[in-house]
């Protein structure tokens, strides 16, 4: 243990504090500031002067107040007890803080991230004498009903197990001892620490080829994301970013979700906190909270901790990835994180780039998204894990030409562009089908053909074509009116409306529609396209398009998906027959006239 480094404050400007006498301290060391022991981090050194970003409100701090370096970088505690918890941006447990200090967050609170008292049942998988290296699994702890928490050898560590014992432990009690390659004997505990700004190591990255199934029709069918992929959701306020992200957090088929509320509304985090425990995961049948970790740094909490919250979130995600799980990190919103960067940059008097954002904005964003991926984990059993990163972006004025959106688009592979015009029409999710894209579609096509329906990709392509045609036909209609179109084109318009209203729109607040399984999604596409093809041939035989548009079966098509997952096949088949009957009746009527 090196000696405690102590400095004195010379300057305070908002969350930035400059202290002198800090020559011995390391860059990015965590420091405690003033009598209130506020938490801060060294972000610049000039001679013996350290610039410190403070994660708490600095009111009441003045010249001459002392600063102590802890000698360690900003780190998170990783071990049993993380799941279902809610943390602030620097991993302080908010529920514990609430019970200890009341409903408002005071300053200088020092509460360990993992409950020190709670006892966990540990089952050893290795025995004395075994050779282990970084990533190997000592044993397991069952955390909640879903996650089997694997206690791993920390990266970069290796050696021979001296002793290890199954039993009941808290996170700091030694569960055994390890003799390292250097001959030193160290205690093994359930907990390890990792600095948040450093990516956890892996053996190799593998290009992802499995979709992250979300149960959202627009996403799964038109713009799918891969497990281990990256996506962004830019949109002006009121376009449904947060609802879309909540939907992903609820229904994605991943093992764990880390939800980072970064500079957003307090009530939204409360909503997740109160709603998730009551929702059931369709795959495990257990409460969704049992697979969720929340990081909440709401907009009224100190701005510097907002900068750290994204790293805290992704480090936790990487830790579970290393166990071989598939994890999704959902960050709402990366624009607030970028603003925190901008604010610190301004206080450091750095030369600004575009719109006052620092020049390193793009590289910082890239560093964050590059920590996502499908990887072969460290450890000798060759397991694989994935971190998928999804970031909301809040472009000012909804104008996506601003720097944060543009920097993000250069990195991520999926773009779900939200559109306020759709939101005004209450078309939700308001993902614009004309300008959004997914670069994973090709790569994931074989998976859908194999696992859902052989013709899945053709159906999706046909729907996209219909929507494309609609947008060009709309231009004509606006100029010369709908009467000028051929019956075939008018049918296309009608079907496009059906695709939009009956397929793309999905009500996240309805019990039956919030989540849709893949097979049913495929059947819904079949039904819409079946009507299209049959109506096409009816028109060729001389049926009147106006009458086709008014067929009562169309309402049944749109309501068919209300059928439950066990009975929908029969309902869909019945509606399909009804299409035949009504079209045939229509043709017969035409002939008699």
């Amino acid at each position: 243990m090196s000696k405690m480094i102590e400095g004195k404050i010379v300057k305070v400007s908002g969350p930035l504090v400059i202290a002198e006498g800090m020559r011995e301290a390391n860059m990015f060391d965590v420091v405690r500031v003033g009598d209130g022991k506020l938490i801060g981090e060294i972000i610049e050194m000039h001679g013996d002067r350290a610039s410190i970003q403070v994660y708490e409100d600095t009111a009441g701090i003045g010249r001459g107040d002392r600063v102590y370096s802890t000698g360690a970088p900003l780190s998170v505690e990783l071990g049993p007890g993380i799941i279902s918890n809610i943390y602030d941006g620097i991993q302080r447990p908010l529920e514990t803080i609430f019970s200890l200090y009341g409903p408002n967050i005071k300053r200088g609170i020092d509460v360990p991230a993992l409950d020190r008292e709670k006892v966990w049942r540990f089952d050893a998988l290795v025995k004395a004498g075994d050779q282990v290296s970084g990533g190997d699994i000592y044993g397991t702890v069952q955390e909640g009903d879903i996650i089997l928490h694997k206690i791993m050898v920390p990266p970069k560590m290796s050696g021979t197990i001296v002793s290890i014992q199954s039993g009941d432990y808290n996170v700091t009690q030694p569960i055994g001892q390890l003799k390292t390659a250097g001959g030193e004997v160290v205690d093994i505990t359930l907990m390890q620490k990792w600095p948040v700004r450093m990516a956890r190591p892996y053996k190799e990255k593998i290009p992802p080829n499995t979709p992250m199934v979300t149960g959202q029709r627009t996403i799964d069918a038109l713009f799918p994301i891969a497990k281990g992929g990256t996506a962004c959701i830019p949109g002006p306020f009121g376009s449904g970013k947060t609802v879309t992200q909540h939907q992903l957090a609820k229904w994605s088929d991943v093992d764990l979700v880390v939800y980072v509320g970064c500079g957003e509304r307090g009530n939204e985090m409360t909503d997740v906190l109160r709603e998730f425990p009551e929702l059931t995961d369709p795959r495990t049948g257990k409460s969704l909270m049992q697979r969720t970790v929340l990081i909440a740094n709401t907009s009224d909490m100190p701005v510097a901790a907002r900068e750290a919250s994204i790293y805290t979130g992704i480090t936790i995600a990487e830790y579970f990835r290393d166990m071989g799980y598939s994890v999704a990190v959902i960050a709402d919103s990366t624009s607030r994180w970028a603003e925190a960067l901008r604010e610190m940059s301004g206080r450091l008097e750095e030369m600004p780039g575009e719109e006052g954002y620092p020049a390193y904005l793009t590289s910082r964003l890239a560093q964050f998204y590059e920590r996502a991926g499908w990887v072969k984990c460290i450890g000798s059993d060759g397991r694989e894990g994935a971190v998928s990163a999804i970031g909301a972006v809040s472009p000012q004025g909804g104008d996506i030409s601003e720097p944060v959106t543009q920097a993000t688009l250069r990195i991520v592979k999926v773009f779900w562009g939200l559109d306020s015009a759709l939101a005004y029409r209450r078309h939700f999710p308001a993902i614009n089908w004309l300008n959004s894209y997914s670069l994973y579609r090709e790569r994931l096509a074989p998976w859908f053909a194999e696992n859902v329906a052989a013709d899945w990709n053709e159906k999706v392509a046909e729907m996209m074509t219909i929507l494309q045609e609609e947008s060009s036909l709309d231009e004509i209609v606006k100029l010369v009116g709908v009467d000028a179109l051929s019956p075939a084109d008018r049918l296309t318009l009608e079907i496009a409306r059906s695709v939009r209203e009956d397929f793309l729109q999905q009500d996240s607040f309805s019990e039956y529609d919030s989540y849709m399984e893949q097979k049913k999604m495929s059947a819904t596409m079949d039904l819409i396209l079946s009507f299209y093809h049959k109506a096409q041939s009816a028109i060729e035989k001389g049926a009147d398009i106006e009458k086709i548009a008014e067929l009562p079966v169309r309402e049944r098509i749109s309501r068919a998906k209300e059928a439950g997952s066990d009975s929908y096949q029969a309902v869909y088949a019945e509606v399909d027959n009804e299409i035949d009957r009504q079209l045939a009746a229509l043709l017969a009527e035409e002939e008699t006239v």
Partner: protein
Amino acid sequence: MIREYRTIDEVAGPLMLVKQVEGVKYDELGEIELPNGEIRRCKVLEVNGSNVLVQLFDSAAGLNLANSKVRFLGHGVQLPVSRDMLGRVFSGMGEPIDGGPRIIPDKTLDINGSPINPAARLYPNEFIQTGVSTIDGLNTLVRGQKLPIFSGSGLPHANLAAQIARQAKVRGKDDQFAVVFAAIGITFEEADFFISDFKKTGAIDRTVLFINLASDPAIERITTPRMALTAAEHLAYDCNMHVLVILTDITNYCEALREVSAARKEVPGRRGYPGYLYTDLATMYERAGRKEGSTGSITMIPILSMPEDDKTHPIPDLTGYITEGQIILSRELHRKGMMPPVDVLPSLSRLKDKGIGAGKTREDHANTMNQLFSSYARGKEAKELMVVLGEAALTPVDRLYAKFADEFERRYVNQGFYENRSIEETLEIGWELLSILPRSELKRIKPALIEKYHPDYRNKDKAD
């Protein structure tokens, strides 16, 4: 011991540099004594070695570098609070200006508050009936919500805010209710409109007013809303009252902030507003809510005028990202004489879904709301098409939609500032309007609800 300094070195705009001070803390409140004995207040913005940069709340006129004295008071800006503040009028700095005595404080609070732990928040879900159809029916307000009114110059936002303050109630409950009103740089006439409306309805006895008029010092506007919120927090969380906070006009607040930022030569964000405008607004807006350990709540209605009616201007834009929705007023509807001119389509209440439905309003509320929104949107599109191509070019269904849109504006939106509609009346009008459309178009409503509430079915029941 409080030391006095005569070391003022620079005064520029709202900023002042004091040299050779000791023991001064960031964000500390200071007092400047002018040679004539007048006292002005200031706040520490930056401590740099032995120099401190302070922000003046009043004008710098008459300030004399050689003979003025500065004292630092050892604490930040504070507000003495008490339940007796109800019925009183205070300045933007929290001094009583109604000629009454100083209040005897229950306690003295720092006006910056402290962030609410998200784990301690209670999710707002109690329906507030405002009696305004476009709000209750389509953009429902709930207790603890922050729902701003985006307006423009010349639009009747004050009338709408006063109507809400007058009519708002939680049904079936008779809780203690208070209004905290902060006038931030508005004109005397506009402030007077609110005050006389509160007086007329007797609401003045349960109202706390903080008044910074257009003629008062601009920099004081930075503290005015925080004074109001501190008083509101005391009433809500210590006295367990339900407080409605009206802040008008946030645009003036942001301009004061920009003035200080520009004087400090900070790198500006968009349109010269400081890069931290979002964070600064958030620390204000996020003080609305409900939390565990208290039965009170703070519901906030900030009013802001959008320069050039531009919703993408930084002030409405950043506000929209923080608040839980927005009520937008439309110049077009106002010109048509529709009162209150709420522009329904871009307006939004994010918390409505948990505040409506069976047990809160009525089971058909959510379905009819979505149907009204999408039908009105389609009706407006049809009307646009009609302007270009003439009515004959529309399909029969689109003609009905166009009729629906007109009727919707005439009957649903245009209710006037003095009609107080119950939620049932609002829902009823909604159904009557929806019955203009063919039943097959009502895709967003469950068939069972249509059979129960659709006027056609109910009339049939009566006929039977």
